[in-house]
């Protein structure tokens, strides 16, 4: 008897497969992560119970999770719309920083007595513009010279981080509090702060969820969305059909940057309240890539996945109190990403293992269909 593995591509995966496989990936990641926790000398069940208690069990934990989910929905959308078009924008991290720099700069420059709604709209638009410009620095070379955007967007992350650090730690800029003894950002005026819903949860969550629904609609139902999907399927066919490939590429990548920039602006207005590089540099942009991948680049799927991963990140400090290094949350994120990526194969292909009696002795053994 030998086992025969046969792999056949699925034309359209049934919805059960699209649900079961990612769920299995999450469970696999949790199991491997649990093993790591055990190997490090801790109780894995206690760890996961702590994750649940500190992130989802009760109003206060839930508001903490939703507060962190807000920027993750936006950076997740940033990655989702770009990656769907096979534009690898790894730069949400830097685009978010630049959005935060612009938003806090505007909040500190505009007269503080203008109406609050106007102020908030202006700083969010400013953040969006800064994120879009920062992504544009990668989009334009990509469009005209086919420059690898993986490299350019990533390099720009490091540039943005150093620039933000310079504004607070390396200079006496507009952003810096001149009265503080240690380097610190200046607090933005009250009119620029996002109103709160409950505990620290602010109204930014509605902007994030609204953006997800809007983008889902745009890419599903409009001509623009149809053209973008056509370009991502075949550049040649799109050119033949008269669709401007370069303009789609630039618009998607700058829109992606704008979303990350909005995330930065909302973090400033709703949570951080000053340009604080150490708080802002918490991998919100990179985590957005994981969010998008787990959501399979679906704009609506980004919302629950962002909430789930936000819950994981929020629990880091509680896990630390159990004696587990808080870096476990990054490790778990990575494992989730990895298993979800591997799961794509099982969504796209039907794998069947059948037992057969070998006809010839030398036909036996392993992966016959490689």
């Amino acid at each position: 008897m030998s086992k025969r593995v046969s792999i056949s591509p699925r034309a359209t995966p049934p919805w059960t497969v699209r649900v079961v496989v990612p769920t299995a990936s999450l469970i696999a990641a949790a199991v491997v992560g649990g093993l790591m926790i055990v190997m490090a000398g801790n109780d894995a069940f206690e760890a996961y119970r702590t994750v649940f208690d500190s992130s989802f069990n009760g109003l206060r934990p839930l508001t903490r999770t939703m507060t962190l989910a807000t920027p993750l929905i936006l950076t997740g959308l940033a990655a989702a719309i770009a990656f769907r078009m096979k534009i690898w924008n790894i730069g949400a991290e830097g685009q978010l920083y630049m959005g935060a720099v612009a938003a806090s700069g505007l909040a500190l420059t505009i007269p503080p007595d203008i109406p609050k709604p106007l102020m908030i709209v202006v700083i969010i638009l400013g953040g969006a513009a800064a994120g879009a410009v920062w992504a544009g620095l990668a989009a334009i070379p990509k469009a005209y010279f086919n420059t690898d955007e993986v490299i350019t967007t990533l390099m720009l992350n490091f540039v943005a981080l150093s620039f933000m650090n310079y504004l607070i730690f390396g200079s006496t800029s507009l952003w810096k509090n001149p009265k503080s003894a240690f380097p610190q950002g200046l607090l933005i005026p009250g009119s620029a702060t996002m109103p709160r819903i409950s505990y620290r949860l602010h109204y930014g969550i509605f902007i994030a969820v609204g953006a997800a629904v809007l983008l889902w609609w745009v890419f599903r139902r409009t001509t623009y969305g149809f053209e973008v999907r056509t370009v991502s399927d075949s550049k040649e066919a799109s050119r033949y059909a008269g669709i401007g490939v370069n303009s789609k590429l630039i618009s998607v990548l700058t829109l992606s940057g704008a979303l990350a920039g909005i995330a930065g602006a909302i973090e400033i207005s709703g949570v951080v309240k000053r340009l604080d590089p150490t708080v802002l540099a918490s991998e919100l942009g990179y985590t957005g890539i994981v969010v998008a991948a787990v959501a399979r680049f679906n704009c609506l799927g980004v919302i629950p996945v962002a909430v789930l991963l936000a819950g994981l990140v929020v629990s880091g400090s509680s896990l630390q109190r159990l004696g587990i290094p808080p870096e476990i949350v990054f490790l778990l994120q990575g494992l989730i990403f990895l298993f979800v990526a591997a799961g794509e194969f099982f969504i796209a292909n039907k794998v069947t293992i059948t037992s057969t009696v070998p006809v010839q002795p030398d036909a036996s053994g392993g992966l016959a269909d490689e």
Partner: protein
Amino acid sequence: MNDTVLILSVVSAISAGTPILFAALGEIMTERSGVMNLGVDGMMLIGAVTGFWVGVETESAVLALLAGGLAGTLLSLIHAVLAISLRVNQVISGLALVIVGNGLSAFWGNIGGTAADNSADQALVQTKNGVSIDPILPEVLQELPVVGPIVFGHDLVIYFSWALVGAAGYLLYRTQFGLSLRAVGEDPGAADAAGLSVSRFRYVFTLVGGFGAGLGGAYLAVGVIGTWAAGLTAGAGWIAVALVILSGWRPWAALLAAYAFGALRSLGFTLQIAGIEVASDFLAMIPFVATYLVVIVVSANPARARKIASPASLGQPYSREAR
């Protein structure tokens, strides 16, 4: 700038460029087989934490570097399974590897207590932990003016990296095996028809790339910086990925490019001894701004793009049925 400053800056450029060189050499071999592994930074981090830990435990530099290389190899095996066997998008799989490598190294680095608060106590090179990687050639040679420090003053690892560059170039361009490897990367269908095992080549050279990145990370931790901290590479792995493009997938060009970027990374040190003050944040920015600009300039040059293109099947999974 006087001569001493110049010589010292060349020496520090070589030292700072060597980890990137190992990683870039490995990635060149991986990409030559048609597999793109963007996980270099993650593999370097795993190599760095493993190498540092083994160095502390065994006090052997050779074991530390070897362990780092093997750790990188293990991580690259994940990419090989995903990218080659499961035909997962290679960008996605590589990014996943970065995040896993980052998380795994930070997690284990914190557990082992190696990321301790007192780094002076933990620095491997100078202290009792005692993995010392010393210059190996006779002092007579080292004391020669100019060429002494620049050519003869290095540790064994740097000479090893020069040998690797030569070996990689010889393998790629002067052997039947190298021709087969390049064929697999350029046209896997034809290579398969000629009787070569595409997936075996790709597996082996993805692992080779992992070893290079892990070794580079270990040398960074043990030989260059002398300590471990989470996120130690500070983007060095990504610069290595960029160098592969800049070098046109040629080992000797990667050597020059790695030293050029080593010079940029150690620019702060150079300017400091030359007595020039520049804001540290701008110094930190320079290698990344330079990489950004050079990648654009290289891609904007159509003559070069025709002459030195990436391996034709780079990043594309091979499936015999879909041929």
